[in-house]
């Protein structure tokens, strides 16, 4: 069968594209985890994930620590907190950091996971390429506990009584 050179070229290009696509899928499969991975999985399987691109979701906690052009953002997924090293331009969306008075922003971080980061003295961390805010944080409403307040009144009353009795005994 004689094949037109143009068709031959198209077929070769198609084959080349297929190989590239397959290679791309292979790379993605081995070096990137599109689904989010928990901190426990990352810590327990650190060697497996080392150097791979991972997606990690959690609440921003504590202080954001700016270091030059970058910043440390500690992200807690409910089990552990992991340090995320990120360009400071990418953290502009973060408004709330988790503490007693605040529920921190829940963010999705995509970046390279390091079991023992060469840049940061062997820390287990994530070097983020992107950060997306998933759920906005808010101030945590602190409702006064009236049961506790009543116990305080009772205890103060008892202590006051002891004090008065001691004073009377001294006289």
């Amino acid at each position, binding site marked *: 069968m004689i094949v037109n050179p143009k068709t031959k070229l198209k077929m070769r290009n198609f084959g080349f594209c297929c190989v590239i696509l397959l290679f791309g899928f292979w790379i993605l499969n081995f070096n990137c985890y599109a689904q989010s991975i928990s901190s426990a999985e990352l810590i327990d399987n650190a060697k497996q994930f080392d150097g791979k691109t991972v997606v990690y979701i959690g609440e921003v906690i504590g202080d954001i*620590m700016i270091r030059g052009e970058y910043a440390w953002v*500690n992200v807690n997924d409910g089990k552990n907190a992991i340090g995320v090293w990120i360009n400071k331009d990418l953290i502009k969306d973060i408004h709330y950091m988790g503490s007693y008075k605040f529920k921190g922003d829940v963010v999705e971080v995509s970046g390279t996971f390091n079991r023992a980061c060469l840049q940061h*003295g062997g820390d287990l961390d994530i070097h983020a390429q992107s950060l997306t805010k998933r759920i906005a944080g808010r101030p945590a409403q602190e409702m006064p506990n009236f049961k506790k307040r009543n116990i305080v009144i009772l205890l103060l009353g008892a202590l006051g009584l002891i004090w008065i009795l001691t004073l009377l005994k001294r006289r």
Partner: protein
Amino acid sequence: MIRKPNIEDIKGIGYYLGKIIIGLSLTMVIPIIIGIAFGEINPTLDFIISMGITLLFGLLLTKLCFTEKDLNWMQGMIIASLSWIAATLLGALPLYLSGHWNSFLDACFDAMSGFATTGLTLVQNLDHLSYAHNLWRHLIMFIGGQGIVIVALSFFVKGFSGAFKMYVGEARDERVLPNVIDTARFIWLVSIAYLILGTLALGMVGILNGMKTINAFFHGACVFMAAFDTGGFAPQSQNILYYHSLPYEIVTITIMLLGAINFKLHYHIWMGNRKEILKNIETITLFMSIMLTFFIVAVGLVKLGTYPQAIALFRKGFYQLVSGHTGTGYMTIYARQFINEWGDLALVGIIIAMGLGGSVCSTTGAIKMLRVGIIFKALIEDLKKIILPEQAIVAQKFHHIKDMFMEDKQARAALFITLAYLALYGFGAIVGMLFGYPFLHSLFESTSAAANVGLSCGITDTTMPAALKLTYIFQMWAGRLEFMSVFTLIGFLVAAVKGK
């Protein structure tokens, strides 16, 4: 014949125990002030309730057991051991009320861990804990590090001869100054002077690290209290890894080492006798021991290729090692990394370091360097006796503040305590294995609890069996008090049942 304790014995114990409990209740004023300052309503209520209950309990004891009689040795020892149990139960109240601990047993675990300056923790959602509760966690380490009895002796006891008996019962057999109350006050003076300097240093590093000023100094004070008292609690769940900072690690290592030094040595350094640090048997043994155990850890880590760079290996390996050796328990790795990445040899190095500990009359736990040094010298003396002619007179000397000739009774006492610690480490390991944990992991966690260290390989968790929690609580208590007062309490209870 065993003598049954009489009502006067019990009254003496109850009266002074009551005084110590009143002292403990007054320390709760500090978190109340912090709670008010940060506008934390419920945490403030938690501490007012806890303070009220503690004060009531203390007042009741002093009123019901009022006595003017001085203490005997047995009572002094029992007060020391009971005051730690009472402090654990009452100190756990505000923790439990916060709702961050799953059960009262978990809160008691953390309270004992705090007072005994261990650092193992069962807290939940630490990153959302209030400032008041967080300060309390660290303050109990500061109080426990100096000694609960020391607090009472320093501020609430005007002076009586029974003071020394309680002081000794709290594992402090060395007096810095001739008077035990002056000694207690000196220990506080040293600690508060370092607290101010340490908080400033850590606060400044925190600001340079990018923390908010208020948080930098709050964390600085908390971390200092836990590091100097070789405790190991930290305000955030990631422990020291939270800061991602080499300067922070350097400052905390310095504070941990200062905390591991004998208060008597601090006194001599303060008085200008700086050469003592180079001659003292404890500092020499500590240096040698750190080098030796670090060598084991480094070989273990290199063998497995855990850290790709020498600098990372040193930063991670040396930090955890010093933290373990000084009995602090600060970590810059995750607990599971010990098991998953460090390997058996490095773990053994850390276990040995934890088991040896720091100096006597310091805030560390474990066997301690003076005893290790004395046992080593006794071994050399025995070897010399074998090697040298029979007529030769062998006398072994060591330097601890002054030159001393070694006596058999010193070696015997050092060996007895060492054996007791080894038995305690083994006991916890066996209990751990009974619950299905592997030998090395069980030994690691058990040594950490009994030596009041606080490094964890992941066993310590709120889901672990209650019996194991109770075992670790007992180990932390017995390890901190160095057995004598615990044995006395057991003897007292036996006498109460079997005595006539």
